[in-house]
């Protein structure tokens, strides 16, 4: 076979998602109105199939594709799985939700597939240009998804904000890429790594500056402080199904690319930005957790919660920069991303059912009052997700938090771990609040009865508990995947 065919096979999940995205876009234009359930089914099938393709190639040795643009390795597979699972859960809730809010356009699913294709590209890209293109594919699809309810001012506002700030941050990222290219003569991650290895710790200033700009660009995408301002408005304004995708897949993909650059490329040379990463991590954990304390809207609360969790993940990245390649807690980043995907997917499965009779989101925390009595299973499921988000046992969130803190303490970042512990203690307060409303207050909660959303909730809570009690296999997988980028 020609190398091109090999590459095609290697990148089959990406091509499948992109191809089906185009097909569905055309179908949406031709078949009007497009049968809702059919397009939902096709989209789910496509994502499930790409998940299968990723899983099938999981055991194979790492290889380059498209002339070094993509690197198909265990690291990429792990984050691709996380992103696809996030996408699948978002799709599970989206059919019912979109119908309730009155958005019945076939383009929705096509855009989700494009976004997922971009996410996979970010997970596998081994070239800064490729990472940038994948980031844009993902981002532009998500900007559009935010605005998919055109009649809703809030949604449009959120999309607009996201777009303006996102475009701005993309520009900064691209500027950073250009500087790195100027300093090293290449945009390939392996090329940059070779350049750094040859310099023996001597890093040109231009490269340092370029790297710092990359931090800023990625910092925007993962919503880390001080580049987090967009997140609360966008999370709240966007349709809940889209927010679910942002809180799971987008986060996983952004951290995949961020992590590959920091861990895989710069490695110990990233210690030049250690102070910056440290500060970003500490501030993000504090601001996210404190900001969430006073939110009464659940979607907005989850936006701050996602900022806080970005802080925990940055703590892992920051630890890696100081501890180096032999660090045994490297897998914490990957493990936590997966746990985070499950717990957010479960929580948003409940939020997506909180719509009022007019098709608007009704996610004020009051609306949960009495849920424990009226829908005990949904309340139990949401509680498990919240307990996991709070990092309490016996859930995957606890194991993940142990893993992250272990990485930080092992890297000698005791101060950061203590900041994280204080933040997490504040976090417990706001994750408990929904439980207060569900179990300790009386009320008549209205919850759309959406079987597929409840299925998503059931699956995620089962996974959270199972991997909370038996985390061994996921730990090994996460560890092996992060090791694969170390070469």
């Amino acid at each position, binding site marked *: 076979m020609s190398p091109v065919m090999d590459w095609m096979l290697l990148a089959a999940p990406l091509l499948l998602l992109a191809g089906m995205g185009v097909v569905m876009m055309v179908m949406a234009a031709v078949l009007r109105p497009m049968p809702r359930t059919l397009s939902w089914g096709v989209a789910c099938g496509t994502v499930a199939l790409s998940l299968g393709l990723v899983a099938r190639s999981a055991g194979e040795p790492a290889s380059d594709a498209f002339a070094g643009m993509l690197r198909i390795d265990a690291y990429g597979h792990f984050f691709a799985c996380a992103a696809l699972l996030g996408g699948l859960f978002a799709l599970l809730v989206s059919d019912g939700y979109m119908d309730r809010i009155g958005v019945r356009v076939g383009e929705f699913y096509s855009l989700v597939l494009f976004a997922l294709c971009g996410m996979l590209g970010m997970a596998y890209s081994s070239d800064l240009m490729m990472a940038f293109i994948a980031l844009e594919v993902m981002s532009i699809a998500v900007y559009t998804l935010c605005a998919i309810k055109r009649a809703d001012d809030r949604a449009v506002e959120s999309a607009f904000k996201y777009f303006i700030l996102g475009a701005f941050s993309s520009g900064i990222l691209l500027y950073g890429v250009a500087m790195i290219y100027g300093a090293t003569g290449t945009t390939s991650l392996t090329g940059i790594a070779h350049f750094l290895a040859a310099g023996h710790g001597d890093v040109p200033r231009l490269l340092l500056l370029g790297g710092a700009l990359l931090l800023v660009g990625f910092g925007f995408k993962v919503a880390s402080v001080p580049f987090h301002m967009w997140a609360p408005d966008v999370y709240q304004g966007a349709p809940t199904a889209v927010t679910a995708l942002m809180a799971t897949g987008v986060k996983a993909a952004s951290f995949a690319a961020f992590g590959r650059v920091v861990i895989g490329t710069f490695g110990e040379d990233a210690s030049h930005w250690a102070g910056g990463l440290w500060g970003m991590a500490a501030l993000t954990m504090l601001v996210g957790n404190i900001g969430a304390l006073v939110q009464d809207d659940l979607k907005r609360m989850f936006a701050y919660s996602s900022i806080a969790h970005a802080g925990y993940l940055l703590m892992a990245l920051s630890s890696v920069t100081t501890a180096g390649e032999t660090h*045994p807690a490297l897998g914490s980043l990957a493990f936590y991303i997966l746990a985070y995907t499950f717990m957010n997917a479960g929580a948003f499965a409940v939020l997506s059912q909180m719509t009022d009779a007019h098709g608007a989101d009704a996610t004020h925390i009051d609306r949960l009052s009495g849920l424990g009595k009226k829908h005990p299973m949904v309340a139990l499921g949401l509680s498990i997700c919240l*307990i996991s988000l709070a990092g*309490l*046992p*016996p859930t995957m969130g*606890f194991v993940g*938090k*142990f893993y992250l*803190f*272990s990485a930080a*303490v*092992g890297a000698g970042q*005791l101060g950061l*771990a*203590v900041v994280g*512990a*204080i933040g*997490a*203690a504040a976090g*417990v*307060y706001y994750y*408990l609040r929904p439980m*207060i409303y569900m*179990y*300790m207050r009386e009320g008549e909660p209205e919850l759309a009865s959406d079987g597929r959303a409840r299925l998503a909730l059931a699956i995620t809570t089962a996974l959270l508990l199972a991997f909370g009690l038996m*985390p*061994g296999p996921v*730990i*090994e997988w996460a*560890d092996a995947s992060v090791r694969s980028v170390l070469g």
Partner: protein
Amino acid sequence: MPLLSLVTFLPVALALLVAVMPKEAARSGALAASLVVFAASLPLWFGYDPAGAEYQFVEKHPWIESWGVGYHLGLDGVSLLLVLLTTALTPLILLAGFSGVHEKYRGYAALMLALEGAMIGTFVSLDTFLFYIFWELVLLPMYFLIGIWGGERRIYAAVKLFVYTVAGSLLMLVALIGLYWAHYEQTGAWSTDLGDLLALTLSPDTQKWMFAFLAIAFAIKVPMFPVHTWLPDAHVEAPTGGSVVLAGVMLKMGTYGFYRFAMPLFPDAVTAYGPVLIGLAVTGILYGALVALVQDDVKKLVAYSSVSHLGYVMLGLFALNAPGVSGAIFQMLNHGVSTGALFFLVGVLYERRHTRAIADYGGLTKVMPKFALIFMIMTFSSIGLPGLNGFVGEFMILIGSFQYAPMWTVAAATGVIFGAAYMLWVFQRMMFGPLKNEANRNLPDLSARELTYLMPLVILAFVLGIYPQPFLDRINPSVERFVARMEEHFDESPYSCGNACLPSWLSKETH
């Protein structure tokens, strides 16, 4: 048969069963479930050999192998008594709940059983990771018990309890992770097993920060002055059963944590920080007693008396000698019995009159003679009257603490007087005098059911007071090992002031 796993997880399994039982069967079903657990825990008492190995009924299996995390359970004399206290109190609590809990009894009983399992888990875990999991798990059922079945300000109290404890726990987690890494650096292997971690040699500075983090977590749970402020709120708002389990067992998790983890793991830090903790313990004894003295709410009074009593336990633990530590452990048991009973008694009154204000009562002896008698016994037990359980523990603690901290012991001993003052005074105000309040004229005396759950505690108070030997026999070998381990780390006296803390006229006589 894995007896410890059975005793730990049986309540959890039965909790699930109780939660889905038909409503009508829930009461008897829950009671039966808790009695089954108690019966299952009895072989531990009879099978435990005081002269045997340090840990018995050991179960050890790998769990998360790449991390060196194991499933390691074991029982020493101290955990034995705490486990039995837990399994014995739970049926009484569920029986008391028949009348106190009007709504959702199934949920209440299920949470209580789940809580029982989690508490037993903390007492038998010999792996730090496992211990931490149980430690955190205890909080969830307690949070719901207070938050759903509690009084007016229940949500505030529940959240306060949770956030206080979790803040401490997270610091503990950081310290445990630090220890985990220290083990890796010294041996090249990963382990969270307590036995492996005890074998480490840590620099005094490392020990200090780790001990400090653990001590904060445990001190919040005990609770020690000045981090005790969650306790009065939690107790006042909790339903009767919640208060009983909180005072009876949960507070001991803190002191047990010191005994099992914080002190043996960081002996050098104990000698460095011991005086501080002793000072806080004695402050707590006096402060708790004085605040109890001015309460007009009887439940709050009992809550503050817990702060004072647990101060004695801490003082005994940091006496670092056999009488002090044995006394501390024995006092943990006593406090569970007498304060548990006092909370039951307060609950009995509250169910009848829906008020806890001391001023609303008076002269109850005339209408409720049986109640008054039991209240009297428990009052005496709480203040440490010879012949009852409280005396034995307090006496041993004060004897022990006199060796290294004589002046503090003198201060602590005055707490005994304050203790007698607030308990006797409240007894007098509520039980004696004229029956002024008309609403109290027709109060029924204790029913057969109420007697059923109070009598075991009364009997225990006498048994522990008159014939403590079987209990001390089981405590002492474990305590001796503990003390020997601590003594390796100091010569004459653990604390720098040592006997010099004595006034000169006294030290002359002893020489």
